[in-house]
């Protein structure tokens, strides 16, 4: 044991994150059974959560977890005769070797993110098996009950066993699709952390930091993949500007009003370097283009100096590789700065059927209508947006606009009217 002091929860979480995935991957390989291995490691984590705060994090937390998982497994299997051969394999597990060479966590990640597993279960499985988060912790982060989250995990693991989802690296030709699954999972985890952060939400865990950590791990294990580098850059760019999103009273600060001096300019430079490396690896994919757009915002010294022509060009490319209505909506905002509010409004109106249930369609439409002095229609659109979002920060901005009208009495646009931040995420 390291010293006589108690360990903080933060140090313990960090130890899990560093070790749990490797322990789980090693045990899965040695047992040939992801379901069992993953359960045993989770048991070991729960035991560690009882002991480490008191005894401190052991000197070799990985070996400790593997040893504990092994003991748990032997106890359990002794009660179940049908696992006789696995009991033998467990007895032979070498606890000195939490294998890192070659790192087996990638296989674990790809299996947890298999396309045959529902996205929400991919997230839960990955956070548990690779990051060493407990079911309770994951349930809290995603605002569902521990029972619900537990069932989600059990169902996914049962499918892995019963539908014979293999525990292996994807073949070369499958790699783009399978990497895409992992990245989509990671970006959802990142956004969950990003959007739920704020003054009102006391989360014990920063999921955004976890997503970046995991993306860095994927990048280390699977180097020179354009979209992996690009997603990493994208998340780092959001992260670099995170501190300026709320003011001291806890209200949302919109992009044009943010204090750019507090942005993390070193992180922005890192992200730009990642993007430059990624650019040479092939035709730009969706994450690369989104990151390049975020970089344009991050690189502008003031809001007025934003290079909207460049942003519009990037959105044009993005609508080709990812022709979704939400992308077109974001493109319309760039269009407003380049070609004017009339073109942007026309584009937004064209999306109003597809995105009728999406609050930012209505909020954006409201802003554009206001520029033409169409105040009543604008207020109606803001009301619709308000009904469609549960995000407290966004509701606050919308409510202010509905009350104040967001315009001066003569109907011209009021530059001080609050606007919603609407670049991704």
């Amino acid at each position: 044991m390291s010293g006589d002091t108690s360990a903080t929860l933060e140090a313990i979480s960090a130890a899990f994150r560093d070790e749990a995935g490797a322990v789980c991957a090693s045990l899965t390989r040695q047992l040939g059974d992801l379901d069992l291995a993953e359960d045993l490691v989770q048991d070991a984590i729960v035991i560690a959560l009882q002991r480490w705060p008191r005894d401190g994090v052991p000197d070799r937390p990985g070996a400790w977890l593997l040893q504990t998982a092994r003991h748990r497994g032997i106890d359990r299997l002794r009660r179940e005769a049908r696992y006789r051969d696995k009991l033998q394999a467990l007895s032979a597990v070498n606890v000195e070797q939490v294998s890192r060479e070659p790192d087996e966590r990638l296989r674990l990640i790809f299996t947890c993110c298999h396309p045959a597993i529902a996205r929400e279960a991919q997230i839960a499985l990955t956070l548990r098996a690779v990051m060493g988060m407990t079911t309770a912790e994951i349930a809290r982060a995603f605002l569902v009950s521990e029972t619900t989250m537990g069932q989600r995990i059990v169902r996914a693991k049962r499918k892995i066993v019963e539908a014979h989802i293999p525990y292996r690296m994807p073949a070369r030709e499958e790699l783009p699709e399978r990497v895409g699954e992992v990245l989509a999972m990671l970006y959802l985890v990142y956004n969950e952390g990003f959007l739920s952060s704020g003054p009102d939400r006391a989360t014990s865990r920063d999921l955004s930091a976890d997503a970046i950590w995991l993306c860095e791990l994927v990048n280390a294990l699977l180097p020179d993949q354009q979209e992996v580098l690009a997603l990493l850059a994208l998340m780092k760019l959001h992260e670099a500007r995170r501190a300026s999103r709320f003011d001291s009273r806890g209200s949302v600060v919109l992009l044009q009003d943010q204090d750019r001096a507090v942005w993390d300019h070193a992180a922005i430079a890192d992200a730009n370097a990642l993007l430059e490396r990624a650019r040479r690896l092939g035709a730009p994919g969706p994450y690369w283009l989104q990151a390049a757009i975020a970089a344009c915002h991050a690189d502008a010294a003031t809001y007025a100096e934003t290079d909207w022509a460049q942003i519009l060009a990037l959105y044009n490319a993005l609508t080709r590789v990812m022709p979704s209505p939400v992308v077109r909506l974001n493109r319309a905002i760039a269009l407003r700065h380049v070609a004017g509010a009339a073109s942007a409004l026309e584009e937004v109106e064209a999306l109003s059927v597809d995105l009728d249930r999406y609050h930012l369609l209505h909020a954006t439409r409201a802003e554009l209508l206001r520029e033409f002095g169409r105040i009543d229609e604008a207020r109606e659109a803001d009301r619709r947006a308000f009904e469609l979002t549960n995000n407290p920060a966004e509701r606050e901005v919308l409510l202010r606009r509905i009350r104040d009208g967001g315009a001066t009495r003569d109907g011209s646009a009021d530059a001080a009217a609050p606007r919603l931040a609407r670049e991704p995420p």
Partner: protein
Amino acid sequence: MGQKYVLMFVRDDEAFLADPAHDHRYESINQWFMDLGQQGKIVETGSELQPAHNATTVRWSGGNPLVTDGPFMESKETVAGFTTIEVSDLDEAIAIAKRWPAKDHAIEIRPVVDFEMDGH
């Protein structure tokens, strides 16, 4: 030993039969079956089904049999055929399904119950 999966071919019958070229498409579909058969992956050839408007469903309502016209679930897309393959794992089954030539179908892949496994 491999794992058996039933592949269920799902399509919008009306749209499929209305396509004047649909006869020609059986050439590539037959080729798909021949290739799989030569690789020894097909364990039961299965059948192509008549359109769902010829389906009849029997279910029980309060213990009494109830016979109704049509498939078990009213839907534009219905099961139009099935075949059983035996492959090493789900990834191989997915790869085979991806080679299916008729891109207006959906293919549902269902693992078959293995009676030698525990729990059945």
